[in-house]
């Protein structure tokens, strides 16, 4: 925030994460609709009677008042708008919430990502309502890739741009899309992608959410969708996304416990 602007300003924000700072303070990473991702300081948040603590947990949608400071702006007041309580009480949804927050964090740098604010908010609301989790999370992954300029090519070959039939498609994770039979020899590290996985991803990429959320997804298909999308998200982020591994482990455990 520029020191020439107002000394105190208000903004809506979604808390992406927290980390320890000096004394009883923490650095809070927030995403705002105007300034994108930014770090700010919550002083005294570790004290038992802090008026900020409950309002700045990761995944909270809140109203903030911040004071401009030389380095990191200081959070003076915080008021929760929504904590997405249903998501907080379900392991699968909570882990998915942590995953989408980590995605936004990894795909943005300070001062960018303001155009991810509304998609993230909508995703957190859908997650809280418990709508088709597969459509919510993979739809959001595809939105992030689109907004950050990494839209995967799901209809055309990434090399020759020819339209590819879903039955004969090969998949290139590093290339970010499908490869036709003629080009498969020139693109390294391709693998087959199952026809129904590609069809569902195409629907998540281009259909309105209400329609794509009606697609029935069994656990086997969801496992394949997750593997493809997690691989893609890690490849473009160029670093590990730890919560993706946790999400896969929890999906597997949940499936086991459900028989």
């Amino acid at each position, binding site marked *: 925030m520029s020191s020439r602007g107002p000394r105190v300003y208000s903004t809506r924000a979604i808390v992406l*994460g927290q*980390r*320890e700072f*000096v*004394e*009883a303070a923490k650095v809070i990473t927030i995403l705002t609709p105007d300034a994108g991702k930014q770090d700010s300081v919550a002083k005294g948040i*570790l004290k*038992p*009677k802090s*008026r900020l*603590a*409950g*309002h700045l*947990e*990761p*995944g909270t949608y809140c109203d903030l008042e911040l004071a401009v400071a030389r380095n990191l702006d200081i959070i003076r007041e915080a008021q*929760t708008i*929504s*904590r997405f*309580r249903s998501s*907080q*009480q*379900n*392991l699968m949804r*909570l*882990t998915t*919430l*942590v*995953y989408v*927050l*980590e995605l936004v*964090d990894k795909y943005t740098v300070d001062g960018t990502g303001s155009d991810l604010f509304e998609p993230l908010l909508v995703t957190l609301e859908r997650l809280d309502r418990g709508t088709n989790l597969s459509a919510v999370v993979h739809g959001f992954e595809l939105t992030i890739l689109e907004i950050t300029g990494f839209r995967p090519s799901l209809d055309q070959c990434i090399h020759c741009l020819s339209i590819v039939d879903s039955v004969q498609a090969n998949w290139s994770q590093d290339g970010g899309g499908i490869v036709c039979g003629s080009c498969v020899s020139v693109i390294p590290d391709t693998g087959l992608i199952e026809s129904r996985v590609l069809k569902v991803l195409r629907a998540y990429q281009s259909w309105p959410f209400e329609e794509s959320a009606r697609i029935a997804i069994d656990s086997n298909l969801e496992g394949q969708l997750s593997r493809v999308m997690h691989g893609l998200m890690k490849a473009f982020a160029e670093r*590990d*996304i*730890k*919560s993706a*591994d*946790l999400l896969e*482990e*929890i999906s597997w*455990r*949940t499936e086991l*416990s459900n028989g």
Partner: protein
Amino acid sequence: MTFGNQGPILGNTNPYGGSSPINRLVSAFHMLPGIGPRSAQRLAYHVLRSPASEAQELASALLDVKENIILCESCQNLAIKSPCNLCDDNGRSQDLLCVVEEPLDVVAIERTGDFKGNYHVLHGVIAPRSGVGPEDLKIDELMKRLRSSGDTIKEVILATNPSTEGEATALYLAQLIHSLDLKVTRLARGLPTGSDVEYADIDTLGRALEFRHEI
């Protein structure tokens, strides 16, 4: 911030030079959690003004904990022997196990005097953003302990913090422990003593209303 001989924490105005013992001590205090540069300076100057015997006692206590403190093989808490005094205490209820994030949480719960069961310390919470996954915590040890306890342990109290990471860890553990057919409970949540209802966050207030009790 730099440590030791690598550079001055006191900035360009440091009158002692980067490698001075004072600067080294300030840097060492600054490495501690919750200690900012000014607090580190205050502590260093306090040590300087104190008698040499106090400084020796401090240095000896620091070395002592590093050399003599171990993890109790049962509860994973910090201890001077294994099993620790708490695990060795036959007067404690063996059917209750309280799972906490950190050793300091044991101290806090013991201070209440209201809990007479045993503990298990996880040494952290699942925090993917910081690169901490379930495999980095003492979860395998917990599950091994529960499986080998037979019918002794009847209830596991999940006392991780009511933060996003603490909740995720509690839900993760609950899923694992339910497969052993044990009762799993979570610490109640509500308003802290001396707080203002007006400033409470909606989650805390909502849960305080949900778990209200008759008086």
